[in-house]
């Protein structure tokens, strides 16, 4: 549905986006992740036809955004970082204007505007001026604007920025509901947002793509080994040596001690599931197994890892990040 090929954008001598390529399948939600100034907004602006690329090309729904901009724009809805609202128009006037310029046929306009207001829960603000809306409502009017012509592709630049927690949850839910009918690219620098809403992540840093994968795969791929956290009540006995003897375990580290219970971080060979053996070893000795859970690298850690300069993608480096 979206195809970005070797996209490069330079502003004078500054290269904002450097040879970026990725594709998004129909109905997918793609998270576009990166620190501020990484080139997220620039990439999105090229995709929406706001600016042409210096090099490379982008296809939206099969149309080159530079060669056939009108066709591509008819199929793209865009919510910029600041919703593009006219402060002196009421919400209804604004959405009616949007429906006109987005090419909604005259007889359908009124119904379409009403439907969008219902979908984004702004109907009660229809006669309020856009300039007097709260941030949350502005964002929703912006979303209604992007959805107006029922586009195949939705491009949302930080849709939850500046919202309160309740609004963030509502907006995320709204976006999730939109997937399937629409292909969505969503940029953010808030990481939990990506793991909660997106099926795939593109991490971009200094204009370059540094990782493309599902949030789960990213987590496991960056680790050379699996780590389990165990809390064992061994009644004062030394559980570490016992755990160490389990086949496949490479390292055991004491991570915390409280009263009689001791927490251990147990590393094992990559791809080897040692949970059964660990549990058997502990329970077999009559000790209490209070907790056992896999330790995954959180997206924050991955993000820091891949965007920190000169961080080699070795297990050792990943380890450092975890600790």
């Amino acid at each position, binding site marked *: 549905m979206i195809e970005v090929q070797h996209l490069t954008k330079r502003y004078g001598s500054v290269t904002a986006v450097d040879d970026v390529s990725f594709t998004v399948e129909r109905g997918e939600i793609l998270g576009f992740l990166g620190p501020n100034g990484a080139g997220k907004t*620039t990439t999105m602006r090229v995709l929406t036809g706001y*600016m*042409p690329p210096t090099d490379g090309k982008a296809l939206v729904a099969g149309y080159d955004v530079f060669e056939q901009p*009108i*066709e591509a724009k008819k199929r*793209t809805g865009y919510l910029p970082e600041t919703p593009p609202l*006219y402060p002196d128009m009421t919400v209804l006037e604004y959405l009616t*204007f949007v429906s006109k*310029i987005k090419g909604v046929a005259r007889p359908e306009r009124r119904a379409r505007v009403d439907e969008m207001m219902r979908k984004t829960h702004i109907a009660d603000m229809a006669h309020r001026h856009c300039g007097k809306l709260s941030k949350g409502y502005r964002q929703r009017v912006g979303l209604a604007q992007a959805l107006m012509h029922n586009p195949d592709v939705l491009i949302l630049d930080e849709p939850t920025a500046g919202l309160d927690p309740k609004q963030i949850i509502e907006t995320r839910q709204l976006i999730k509901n939109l997937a399937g009918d629409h292909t969505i690219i969503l940029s953010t620098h808030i990481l939990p947002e990506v793991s909660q809403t997106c099926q795939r992540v593109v991490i971009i840093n200094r204009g370059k793509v540094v990782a493309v994968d599902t949030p789960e795969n990213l987590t496991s791929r960056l680790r050379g080994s699996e780590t389990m956290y165990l809390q064992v009540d061994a009644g004062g006995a030394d559980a570490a040596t016992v755990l160490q003897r389990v086949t496949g375990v490479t390292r055991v580290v004491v991570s915390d001690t409280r009263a009689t219970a001791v927490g251990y971080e147990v590393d094992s060979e990559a791809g080897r599931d040692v949970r059964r053996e660990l549990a058997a070893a502990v329970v077999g000795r009559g000790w209490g197994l209070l907790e056992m859970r896999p330790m995954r690298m959180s997206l924050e850690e991955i993000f820091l890892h891949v965007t920190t300069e000169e961080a080699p993608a070795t297990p050792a480096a990943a380890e450092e990040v975890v600790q």
Partner: protein
Amino acid sequence: MNNVLAIAHKELKGYFATPIGYIVIGMFALLYGWFFYVMLVIFNQQSLQLGGLEGGGNVDINQQLIRPLFLNASVILLFVLPLVTMRIYSEEKRSGTIELLLTSPLTDVQIIVGKFLGAMTLYAAMLAITAIHMALLFSYGNPEWKVVAIGYLGLLLMGGCFISVGLLISSLTKNQIVSGMITFAVFLLLWVINWPASFAGPTMQSVLNYLSITDHFDDFTKGIVDTKHLVYYFSVMAFGLFLTARSVDTERWKG
């Protein structure tokens, strides 16, 4: 065409959603009304004096009242039209709504022509107010209506040139004050550019006279439609709009 009208309609509504539309029209009406009153008093005096002469004198309401009135209107435009054009692009750039326009399925030309038509409609509304004064003259005197109509045509064309140049300047900056100030300076320059024409050489003289937007208006006030002036006005308008399109496109590449 629908897209053009949608933009034009939005622009026009924008003028009246803020006080700008009312202020511009009100200011123009006030100044024009004042000039009308002053000219009328002078004209009356002249008529009385000339009427006392042998043969009744020869007063021409078109030449002695309406023509100076049109020329004064052109000066008011120099001050008022920058207020109309300064926000057209600057405001959209500042508030980020330009992103909506540029990512909607519209061509640059549709946006520019729409904005131009929006401003032209406001300007036409401004001129419509002067119809009241004209109606007074027609009910108490008998001016030549063709000359009056040609005068209005000239005003419309000249205003079109100003608006087209103002639109171009507005597309260059996101600061309305900068846009308005530069527009005002350029308008003023285009008005006074032929002042040194009388003591310049013959070539320079015709060049300077040709450049002056207001100089081309003079024949219209006399009731003359010269294709030379029509060509000039339409070229300036087209050129202004063309440069605006280039400016918007350049802005795109620069980001």
